[in-house]
């Protein structure tokens, strides 16, 4: 570990990095890959009236954390421990830190108390915890920590901490990335822009509206340095990373706006697979039915002919998704599940979903897909459509009606779909 061998590294006057290096990590949280590991960044801030610790490290790296801490502070000097994020890669050393520095007060966000209890499973209420919100401050004598409540970046509890006098932002996972480099500072480490964007895409992108809310708090701050919880410390032109988050979180905004305020027409994407052509004919009829409703753009894709990755952006920006699958051995076919298990990086909340398909003798695929769509927090306002084997002309009419109902649910023009009188008995609803 050469020059950084368990030393603390000063990143600003009186502010030290006391984190840990994990160069061997190749897969983080099972969803992110990293070609050169990661860092768990923790910091010590010394004021005239005590020391603040900001975040800790993953449990396996506690010894490294305590060794670095010992270089800059005695345990009895620690007055507060700020937890910007409770995920175990930042709180793994917390139980031991609390044992060694029992006088320290924990500073957490207003969404964190229940999580903290679940994390530490305390046997009594002895924890000294202070809950903070945006604008609250903790004084260390000659310097102040000010808090920014930034929920869902990327957990409900996440917050940022701003060292007012030094204009240092301890940003938690925001502006972080999985990139381990002994040289630590953004102007000294190897190229990491791809890691920065990749981290955003997998960790922050599902919460892009929350990113924009947080940027409203962060952008007005004078910044000399951003100290994130993973990856390089951003001391050279820190504001460009804020700008990059603004760029990344501003793309694909269409979905967040109501249909009538959109520049683009509402978008329905129909994905399908077909063994003998029946589900293809259904998909084409669904498309035709939906297109008859004005103000829509309908796209039709055969999943057999594409990788999944190119569809992710389209799906994020779409207003409704319909999936057509035959039933094979009592299940939807694998490419459907491959797609529906690849959407964790985007938010589908509130989009409209629908399922249809031809089957031979049982037809389980459609309700199984509908359950998955609901699990992805989509609405399923139109009951799925199943047809046995070859569609007749009348059945294709039903497919067109199904497409039209989806379109009407999207545009809010439905006047025939569920019930003309808008009152229905619970017993009439499908099981």
């Amino acid at each position, binding site marked *: 570990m050469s020059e950084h061998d368990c030393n603390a590294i000063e990143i600003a006057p009186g502010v030290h990095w006391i984190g840990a290096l994990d160069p061997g990590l190749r897969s983080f949280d099972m969803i992110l890959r990293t070609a050169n590991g990661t860092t768990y960044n923790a910091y010590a801030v010394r004021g005239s009236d005590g020391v603040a610790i900001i975040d800790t490290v993953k449990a396996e790296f506690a010894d490294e954390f305590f060794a670095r801490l010992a270089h800059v502070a005695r345990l009895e000097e620690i007055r507060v421990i700020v937890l910007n994020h409770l995920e175990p890669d930042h709180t793994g050393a917390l139980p031991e830190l609390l044992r060694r520095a029992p006088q320290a007060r924990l500073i957490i966000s207003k969404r964190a108390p229940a999580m903290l209890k679940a994390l530490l499973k305390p046997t009594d209420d002895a924890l000294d915890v202070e809950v903070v919100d945006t604008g609250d401050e903790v004084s260390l004598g000659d310097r102040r920590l000010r808090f920014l409540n930034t929920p869902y970046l990327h957990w409900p509890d996440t917050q940022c901490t701003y060292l007012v006098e030094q204009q240092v932002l301890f940003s938690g996972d925001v502006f972080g990335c999985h990139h381990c480099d002994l040289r630590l500072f953004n102007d000294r480490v190897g190229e990491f822009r791809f890691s920065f964007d990749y981290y955003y895409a997998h960790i922050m992108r599902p919460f892009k509206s929350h990113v924009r809310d947080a940027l409203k708090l962060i952008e007005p701050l004078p910044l000399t340095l951003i100290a994130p919880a993973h990856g390089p410390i951003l001391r050279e032109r820190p504001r460009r990373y804020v700008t990059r988050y603004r760029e990344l979180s501003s793309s694909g905004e269409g979905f967040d706006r109501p249909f009538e305020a959109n520049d683009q027409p509402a978008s329905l994407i129909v994905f399908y697979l077909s063994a003998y052509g029946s589900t293809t004919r259904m998909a084409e009829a669904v498309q035709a039915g939906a297109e008859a409703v004005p103000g829509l753009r309908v796209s039709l894709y055969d999943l057999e002919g594409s990788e999944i990755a190119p569809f992710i952006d389209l799906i994020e920006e779409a207003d409704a998704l319909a999936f057509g699958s035959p039933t094979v051995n009592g299940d939807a076919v694998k490419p459907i599940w491959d797609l529906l298990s690849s959407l964790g990086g985007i938010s589908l*909340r509130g989009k409209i979903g629908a399922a249809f398909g031809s089957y031979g003798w049982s037809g389980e695929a459609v309700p199984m897909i509908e359950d998955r769509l609901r699990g992805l927090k989509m609405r399923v*306002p139109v009951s799925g459509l199943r047809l046995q084997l070859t569609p007749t002309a009348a059945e294709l009419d039903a497919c067109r009606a199904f497409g039209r109902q989806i379109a009407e649910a999207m545009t809010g023009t439905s006047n025939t779909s*569920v019930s003309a009188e808008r*009152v229905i*008995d*619970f017993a009439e*609803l499908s099981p």
Partner: protein
Amino acid sequence: MAKAKVTFQDIDQTVNVPAGIRVIDVSEKIGAGIIYGCREGDCGTCMMHVVEGWNNLTEPSVLEEKVLRENMASRHDRLACQAQIIGDCTVKPA
């Protein structure tokens, strides 16, 4: 069996239901815009706003009150997975 009417304002749909049923069980079937997470009253995802008939839902439990507070609920917000319908009411996503 006692009946009640629940109206989902976002999709302009009313459903006649047996009294005692949870809002989640109706809104999911009808495809209203209330969405769900844990379904156990823990996560707050299914928070809804009660437009009319606040008193026609069962009282929130202490645990539901706590989750509502943690999720910064406004007045007359409830969790759809916890609230049971005992009389006519109108709800919409919070």
